[in-house]
């Protein structure tokens, strides 16, 4: 948002480390705008970083970049289509080689090898042209494989899912951004070759894992990870009715989804349905889900009681929660309610009993709620991996069968 004009300018940007960008007087990184139509000026930039789950709003000064006309000329004058004097044939050969050697136990290593290859083949100087060339090479290979054996595409796509994670680990947001667009078109190709319900479900998982939940739902309207992601995004932007609808669909799809049910209950509370919220909170609180979801359900239930001037019921609920959970927030909430009731000594006793040294990995429930749904992403990745394993032989056969003539002859 431009703070001077109040106008919101929705643009996607990728931040890259070690490139200068002035943020509030400090150099912190560089912004690559995917939309060239944003005028120069000061903007509030919402940064959804990896270090913190909470988006941060920072003031940025957007200044003019490279002149597009000059860039086009430079691109046209570029001597090669790929960086590092790599020939397209060489990149294709190495890409096929990585695919052929894909094994269940070497997949992360293969993803690293593919990242190395793509980094060698592309550079920022001639970005568009090199990315297009790279994309064309990979797409041609995948089309060959798909024509030979549609099932072979699944392990190849899975490799690209891991490649996304590899770029994330390397902090290479620029290549990750480009790669995601490419992968989306690869998924489209996979769907055109395989029309089964199972394939649609797997394709939707891939898209959800790549941060494209809306596209995932267009393929599989009940894809759980996508529903959760869209609900969470709506929730963070204050669109609580929309969040409620996504979470409701998620819980209808899988009633045992305690995390989704907790979020549904919170959305119901925020949209003015405390009775509906109470029903779902109670179910989560008394369920067998993760401790943080149960703790939060108790906290919210107690708050509903307290707001309704039933402070004794709120106290009873929290004491009940503390019989099985030891989240510090439960102690603080209970102490505060006792304090409000004038029961100071009881409040002190509760705070004195609060465990202080939680396990290092035991983040507070309310913090956990803000985190990205890593457990659900891991589950989706696991489901994908199981399907991939059965198709690995298809991939090896297809790579061999579609190898260029000279390569086949040399075997």
């Amino acid at each position: 948002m431009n703070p001077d004009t109040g106008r919101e300018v929705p643009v996607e940007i990728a931040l890259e480390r070690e490139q200068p960008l002035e943020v509030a007087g400090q150099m912190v990184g560089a912004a690559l705008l995917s939309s060239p139509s944003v005028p120069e000026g000061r903007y509030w930039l919402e940064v959804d970083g990896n270090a913190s789950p909470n988006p941060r709003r920072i003031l940025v000064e957007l200044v003019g970049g490279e002149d597009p006309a000059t860039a086009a000329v430079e691109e046209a004058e570029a001597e090669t289509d790929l960086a590092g004097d790599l020939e397209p044939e060489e990149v294709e050969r190495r890409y096929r080689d990585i695919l052929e050697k894909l094994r269940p136990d070497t997949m992360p290593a293969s993803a690293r090898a593919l990242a190395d290859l793509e980094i060698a083949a592309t550079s920022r100087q001639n970005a568009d042209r090199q990315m297009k060339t790279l994309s064309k090479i990979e797409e041609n290979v995948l089309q060959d494989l798909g024509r030979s054996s549609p099932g072979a595409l699944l392990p190849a796509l899975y490799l690209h899912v891991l490649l996304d994670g590899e770029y994330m680990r390397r902090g290479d947001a620029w290549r990750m951004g480009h790669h995601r667009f490419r992968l989306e078109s690869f998924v489209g190709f996979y769907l055109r070759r395989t029309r089964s319900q199972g394939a649609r479900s797997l394709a939707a998982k891939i898209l959800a894992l790549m941060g494209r939940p809306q596209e995932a739902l267009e393929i599989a309207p009940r894809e759980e990870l996508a529903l959760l992601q869209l609900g969470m995004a709506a929730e963070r932007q204050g669109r609580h009715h929309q969040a409620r609808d996504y979470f409701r669909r998620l819980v209808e799809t899988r009633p045992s989804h305690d995390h989704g049910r907790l979020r549904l209950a919170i959305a119901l509370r925020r949209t003015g349905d405390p009775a509906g919220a109470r029903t779902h909170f109670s179910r989560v609180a008394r369920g067998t889900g993760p401790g943080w979801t149960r703790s939060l359900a108790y906290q919210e239930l107690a708050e509903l009681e307290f707001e309704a001037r039933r402070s004794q019921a709120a106290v009873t609920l929290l004491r009940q929660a503390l019989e099985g959970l030891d989240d510090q927030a439960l102690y603080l909430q209970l102490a505060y309610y006792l304090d409000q009731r004038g029961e100071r000594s009881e409040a002190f006793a509760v705070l004195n009993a609060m465990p202080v040294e939680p396990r290092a990995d035991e983040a507070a429930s309310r913090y956990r709620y803000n985190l990205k749904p890593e457990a659900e992403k891991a589950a989706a990745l696991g489901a994908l991996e199981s399907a991939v394993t059965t198709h690995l032989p298809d991939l090896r056969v297809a790579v061999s069968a579609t190898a260029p003539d000279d390569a086949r002859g040399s075997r």
Partner: protein
Amino acid sequence: MGERHSRSAMLLLLWLTVTGAAMAGVTVELESPRPDEPAYGLTEIRAEVASDDPLDVVQFFVDGELVGLAEKPPFSIRHDFGQANVEHHVRVVAKDILGGRDEASVATGFYAVDEEAAVALFQLFVNVTDRSGRGVEDLGPSDFKVADDEGNRQEIVGFDAGNLPLSAVLLVDASESMKGEALDAALAGVQSFLGGCEPEDEVLVGLFSDRLHRLVTVTDQDRGVVNTLSEVVADGGTAVNDHLYYALNRLDLRLGRRVVILLSDGSDVTSLLDMEQVLWRARRSQAITYWLRLDDPKSGAFASSWRSFEETERQLSLLEQMVQDSGGRILRVGSIDRIDDAFARVIRELKAAYVLGFQPSVRYHDGRWRPVTVKVDVPGVRVRARAGFVDE
């Protein structure tokens, strides 16, 4: 089959009737408080219970309200009767698992006085500085004037010029943003603060993020305990409100000059408690709060599923208000190498503060915040003090 059921029901009914006849099997007596004995503050309620059958529960009531439960010996709880000089009705009910029950009750006494004096004493920590920011020393009680918001002058009944022991809670942000050098610098700052303390001062150091990682009591004999805090790995979010509330409560049981020192950027999108709720407690506490503010004021706020950007800004404003109301202040710490200096300045200020005790000349007992102003009869000085008190 149906006949066997109805016979079982009859037998059960008969058995319950016989059991009911033996209800006198549970008896309860109140051992404390004794009849007519005045009950104030935190007081033990203790009962002697005997039962032939297994006990279900013993309930404790004060003035008709359930205040505690016990399921096994000792049948006692501690209850805060408050400071009012009034009679209380204490009742204990014991129940066994077969429905037997007995109860005992007493009425506590109160002190008979011809005229009850309002004895509430409020403390004001006052810092007086000259134009160059240096502390002004050698002032006496007659140099100070305290007045409420209606201009009523308040009589100063207690005065101290810096010899009261200190009870401090140092809350150090150990969230993700403090990882590495920043946390090391913060702990070095804590050591500087401790260097300015006297042997009789009591200091608690808490490392917090979205949770309380570690809390240590530092005594004069064991300053080294702070070194153990360097084991903590900073991670997670920042729940300032929750931990300020915790710290204020820890201090309420202490004596002397009480202070909370918060080292954090203050951006809180995780806390359960709203800063307004913390302010409610802070205004009833006599603690001063200092905030060593780590953030860059030109950078914006955070948001989360719990709080929007605007809401986070509101929380920050309330935190600023809480600090000012308490008579403390905000010290902006632009870089981590200035943390040490900030802590050292705070302890110097605290040691230089005057402590005034006053009894409000007019009492309203309405639970409202009553602003007070402190003036010093010396030209050109700056006075910083608590902004008021809650008249309950």
